[in-house]
Each structure stands twice: as C-alpha cells, then as structure tokens.
C-alpha cells in the first residue's frame, strides 16, 4: 500500500523534481560516506587476530580480513579516501583546464602551445603519467593525490577550448571588442556564463575517472603502505586470499567501488538534464 503510494508520488513528480531528487539523494550518500570516513578512528581499524578471515555476518557485514580487521569499516575508510582524492583531482583538473583555456584565447601562439600540451599529455597512457608523477614526488598519499590531480585536465580543456573557439566567432564578441571592452571583461561577461555548464559537468564527470585511477594506482602498490585502507590496496590484498575461499574480501569492496562510480555517473547525467539547454526537453 505504502509502496504503491510512493511510486505514485514519484510518477506524479515532474522531471525536474525527479532529477533534483535523484541528485540530492545520491549526493547525500556520497557526503555521508566522506563524513563517516572522517570519524572512523584508527582504533576501530585495529587487528583482532582471533577473528581472522570471518565470512560476512551481522557483526561484520563485509566479513573480516587476515588480521581480523572489519572490512566494512576499512571499505568505508577507503571509499572516503577515494572520494576525497576524486574531489581534489576534479577541482585541480578543472582549475588547470579553465586557466589553460583562457590562456589559449589570448593569442594564436599560446593556443598552439596549449593544443600541443593537450596532445602531449593525452598521448601518454593515463596510468603511466600518474605513476611517474607520484614516484617523482616521493610517493606516499601526497604523491598519489597530486598525480591524479594533475593528470585529468586534458579532456575538459579540449572541450572548453573548442567551445571558446566557437563563441569567438559570434558577432557580439567582435562588437564588444570594437566598443573597446577589455579582454578580461569579455571573458567574464560573455565567455564564462556560456561555458559554466560545461565546467560544472566536466568537474563532476572527472570524478569517476579520478577514483578509478586512484584505485588502480594503489592496487598496483604505489603510494600507500599495504596496511592502510585504500580501495585499491584492499582489492589487491583480497586477491591473495581468494585461493583460501575468502570471496567477501574482493566482492564487497569491489561492488562498493562500482556503486560509487555509478552514482557519480548518475549525478552527471541528471545534472546535464538540468543544466544543458540542448537536453532540457529530454
């Protein structure tokens, strides 16, 4: 009864409300994970050897690992870290992308330079760039965060640059110029409002990439110590115990990572519906 009533309400909502609801709900999940992971104290991650390799139960819903640590807490902590790395990487990447885009607008030499820079970075496999940068920064969490941060700006820069080139051909831009408006004024008043949607969407869509790459790098063993909870480390460690039948070590953390990625994709798609005028009628 109750359920059908709910679906009824859901159906009655218009698309805009529905989209907003999805966005806020999913965003809430993500924020809850991050806040939660902040409050997980080191003491709840300590070893408890008598409880080693326990399958999922009500006490440990994700089971325990070979040192008897609760996998749910570890996964949560790891996901929190992933999302933080993702957030940092998205913001840094967006800032780099925006700066490069507007630099490219200044003159054609800078434009070729930016274009060359994009091609250069895009031509090296992503993971390699991340590994190289993180090692050259001395490894550790710091290295991983910075490396993921400085390696995800290429696609967004390319989109923004194309957008700017198109806007540049509009008549009112030429008009503003002949009225003697400064470059800065034109950028602020004419360009920024038009590319803002792209910037916001771009930022959100970098998130899943950044998280996946953080997981890959820690999976390969770069950066963090093997006892620290990062989703990649948890997954690579779980591989060692699959032969003993401990499937829960890989299954739940892997599924959680997948869900987080899907949630970001969902937010991105729905935000586009709201913000992108060309998709407003879908």
């Amino acid at each position, binding site marked *: 009864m109750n359920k059908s009533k709910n679906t009824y309400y859901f159906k009655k909502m218009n698309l805009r409300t529905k989209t907003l609801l999805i966005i806020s709900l999913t965003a809430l999940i993500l924020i809850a994970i991050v806040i939660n992971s902040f409050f997980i104290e080191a003491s709840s991650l300590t070893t408890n050897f008598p409880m*080693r390799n326990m399958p999922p139960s009500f006490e440990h819903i994700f089971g325990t690992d070979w040192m008897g640590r609760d996998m749910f807490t570890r996964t949560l902590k790891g996901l929190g870290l992933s999302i933080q790395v993702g957030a940092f990487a998205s913001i840094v990447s967006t800032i780099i992308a925006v700066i490069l885009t507007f630099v490219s607008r200044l003159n054609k030499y800078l434009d070729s330079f930016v274009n060359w820079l994009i091609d250069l970075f895009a031509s090296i496999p992503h993971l390699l760039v991340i590994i190289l940068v993180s090692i050259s920064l001395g490894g550790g969490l710091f290295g991983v965060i910075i490396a993921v941060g400085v390696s995800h700006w290429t696609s967004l820069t390319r989109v923004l640059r194309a957008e700017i080139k198109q806007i540049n051909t509009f008549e009112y831009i030429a008009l503003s110029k002949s009225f003697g408006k400064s470059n800065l004024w034109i950028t602020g008043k004419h360009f920024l409002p038009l590319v803002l949607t792209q910037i916001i969407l771009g930022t959100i869509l970098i998130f899943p990439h950044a998280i996946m790459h953080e997981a890959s790098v820690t999976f390969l063993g770069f950066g963090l110590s093997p*006892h620290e909870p990062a989703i990649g480390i948890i997954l690579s460690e779980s591989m060692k115990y699959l*032969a*003993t*039948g401990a499937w829960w070590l890989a299954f739940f953390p892997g599924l959680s990572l*997948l869900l987080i990625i899907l949630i970001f994709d969902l937010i991105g798609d729905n935000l586009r519906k709201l913000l992108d005028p060309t998709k407003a009628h879908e």
Partner: protein
Amino acid sequence: MNKKYLIVLAVVIVIGIIGATMFFGGSSVDRNPNELVTAVGAHGGEPETGFDPIQGWASETEPLVQSTLLKRTHNMSLKNDLAESYSVDDDLKKYTVNIKNGVKFHDNTTLTANDVAFTYNKAKESGAAADLSSMVNATAINDTTVEFTLNDSDSTFINKLCSIGIVPEDSYENGTYGENPVGSGPYKFVQWDKGQQVILEINNDYYGDKPEFKKLTILFLENDAAFAAAKNGEVDIAEVPLSYANENVTNMSSVILDSVDARGISLPFLNDTGNTTEDGIPIGNNVTADENIRKALNYGIDRQTLIDGALNGHGSKSFDGIGPVLPWSNNDSAIEDGDSEKAKQFLKEGGWEDSDNDGIVEKNGTKASFKILYDSEDTTRQAIAISVSEQAKELGIEVIPEGKSWDEIDNGKLSNGVVWGYGSLDPSSLYHQYYGGLAGQDYDNPSCYNNSAVNQHMAQAFKTDINASYADWSQVSWDGSTGISPKGDAPWLWTSFVDYPYFVDNTLDISENTTTVQPHGGDIFGNIYDWKRVES
C-alpha cells in the same frame, strides 16, 4: 548508458571467472613418482644472479647443483662432503683441507684443489658470497690439498667451508655461469626459465648418497601463488606464508618446521645529530636513542600475544635473536615480557610523561613517536609491525608502521626502526649485527650499536677455538653486566622466531627427523637425500 552496462558485464565476467576457478581448479596433475615438483623458497625466492655460489647462491643452504667442502648434519655438527679431512692451525690463521680424489664435475672434468682455491679466491673478490674478509687467499698445494691463509685468527672460518659450492676453474665464466651452472652436486642443471622454474636432474656420478628423485623442478611461486599451486595439486611441496598455515589442502598435510630465523626491529642507538653516512643516509633517532624507550618496548611488548596473532600461533619468543638450538644461545637473555607496569616505570625514570593527555608520552617537547619500516611484500613482517605498533600505543609510545620497498628502506634504515629477519648458523653473524666498527655498513649493525665490552667479547671469540668460542659469543647477548639483550642495552626489539610452514603431499616423506636447522631463508632441501615416496 552503454558504458554502464559494459562495466556491469565486466564485473559479472570477472566474478564468474573467479568463481569458476574456485570450483573447478581442484584437479590434480599426474606426475611420475620419481619426479619432484616444488614451490619452496618463498623467503629466498629466485636468485637474481642465477645459481652461482660466487655471486651468493645458497650460501647457507644446500646448493643442489654444486657441492661444498663440509656439510651440516641435522644436529648442526659438521661432516665431510668434498673434504676427506681438514686441519686447523693452533693460531687459527691457517686451514688445510684434503679433498676427495677423483670427484667429477657434471661436464666430466675432475674436481681438484685448484678449483677449490679458484672458487674461494673468486668469491672473496666478488664479496657477494659468504663473508671471506678474514681470508688472504686460498692456495692449492697439490691436486687434493688446499690451504686457506687468513690475515687474523678466525675460529668461525670453519663455517665458510660449508657455505660456498665449488665451481670448475676451466669453464667458469663470470656473468654466464649462473645461467648454466656446472658443479659436482647431486643434481645436474637442465634449464632455467626465468621467473618461472628451474629444472634439475639427478647426477648419476654423484660421489655421495644419491637422492631418490630423478628429476627436481623448483617453481618460483611465492605466497598465495604457492598456496594455490598446492591446492591445485600441482606441487609436491609448497612453502606458504604463516597466514595460510592453518588452511586445509586435500591430499596434503601441513608440516611446520622450527627455525632459528628471528624477526626483530632495529632501534637506532644514536641520537639524530644531522650525521649521515657517506651515501647520505641519515643516522640516528632521538626517541629510540633513549635507553628507557628501548627497554620499555622490550619489557612491555607481549611477545606471546604477537605470536598468537601476527604469526598465527607458529613461532616462539625471542629476546636476542639467537636460536635456542644454537650452541651460543644464552638462557639469561630471557626476561618476563608483556609487563606494562615495568615498561611504564622505565618511561617514568627516563622522564617521559604524558603531559597533554593524548595517550602518548613526551619528554622536553619531544613526542615518543617513531616509524618502523617493513618490507611491503612480506605479510609476516607487516603483521609484526602492526602488532608492535598497537601494543606500543598501550604503553604510551607511538610507533608508526610504514610498508616500503627495500630501496626505500635502505634510505631510512639507520634513522627508523626496521623489521629485519636474521638467523644464521654461523656465530660471526653476531659480529655483523652488533660490532661497533661495522655500524651502518650495508645491512650490518643497522642500529649503529657500539659497546666496547660487547666488541671485546666478539674479538675474543674470533681468537678462541670454535667450540670454546661459543661461550664468548653467548656473552654478546648478556655477560652479567651488559650485552645486546633486553637486560643490557637493548638496541633491538627482538620478537620471535618464525616457523616455516610447508604443505607436503601425502605421498612424500621429507624425513622430518633429519631436517637440518632452518636458517634465515629456510633450507628445506638440506636433507633431500632422505626424502622418499610413500603410500598415502
């Protein structure tokens, strides 16, 4: 949207594959009964420089391909192998060995005293094999007699006669020998697939007791891969990490061997005064340089809890890193550990107090906090580091474990705690661990310990006949007033001896009552001469 379905599909496939391997992977592979397939050597692993004794192959273990002058029996006594007899001069500066006549290398050339002298001189040159620093040279007097001249009295040199396999002078080539070794041992080299396996076959002309197995394949599988191979019935014997020791494998039984291989944490003995080594490695740590911190850890850490947890119950307490079966072990090194009251007493005496109520003690504004580094590949060391860290926190000392590669550990080994593994059948290893003059060189004396009384005991031991010298070596641990054990200066936090867990096929008998004493790295092939097939 397409991308999402692809991701979901990929996950389903991966889970499917994993599930399938878990359900169908249990089939066993048929082998000829006189063939032996092993996955052992998880601690030593595949030798980087090949099977070349001059480059360090098998310096404490059975070399299989080569043979040594002397061998150790299961009760640690020495027996002649290539040697027919040997004599030691009274001043312990000259060792003379008569070798067996007419022993053949695998290429059918004859092994003479020249080959022995060549091998030892080359090994000294390379420096990668056993420590031959006390040897001036080795000379062949005639075809069957070789003379080792030392620059100083060294009673431990007798151990070096067990640790280097003899190579043929005529065909030895630096750099290529390791990939195609020729020796006089029980097994002939057939092929080495790098990263995978080495195949050996029986040497029918072997001068000693021949092993029963005609063909020996050593797979270079480590940790979980070795366990998986055991589970799939691909190997006759597999060495696994301690965390797998309590698993069950069909058709295999678990054999757990005691070892003298100890795990301990070096605690920098000197203060950090900005000094570095010639290579720029920083020396010293202001927290661990305080004797009270080191003693608090040594008395406060409960080693039994650590063994029950981190070592899965397979280990025994260690206070000085010297195995109880070794003739130079010292019973007086033992203390009552796990005594947090006593640990706190030490901290109090040293002026360490928790003034800001964060659970960690301080002294003059310095927090009792230091790092311990562990090899990130080694799960046992990881578990030890974490257990010590958790226990130390209860005492008020913050120990931060960090997993690193050995290259990274090298740069921090003199200024942080490091989880090491040590266990040698040669007492001169103590000299490398604690002698003040060797502080910080390579992997020698990483805590940069220096105590003139301890140095004196070691100097004395070198000058004393080997059997009498054990008394001097044991005084290194504790001589009634000082030493390296917890009652003395405690420059290390020794935790435990680790057992070596193997899964052995039920049709294989590895003759557990003749197993040699397992040093660091293990020596499972030490008694391969006694292994046989049995009805399961």
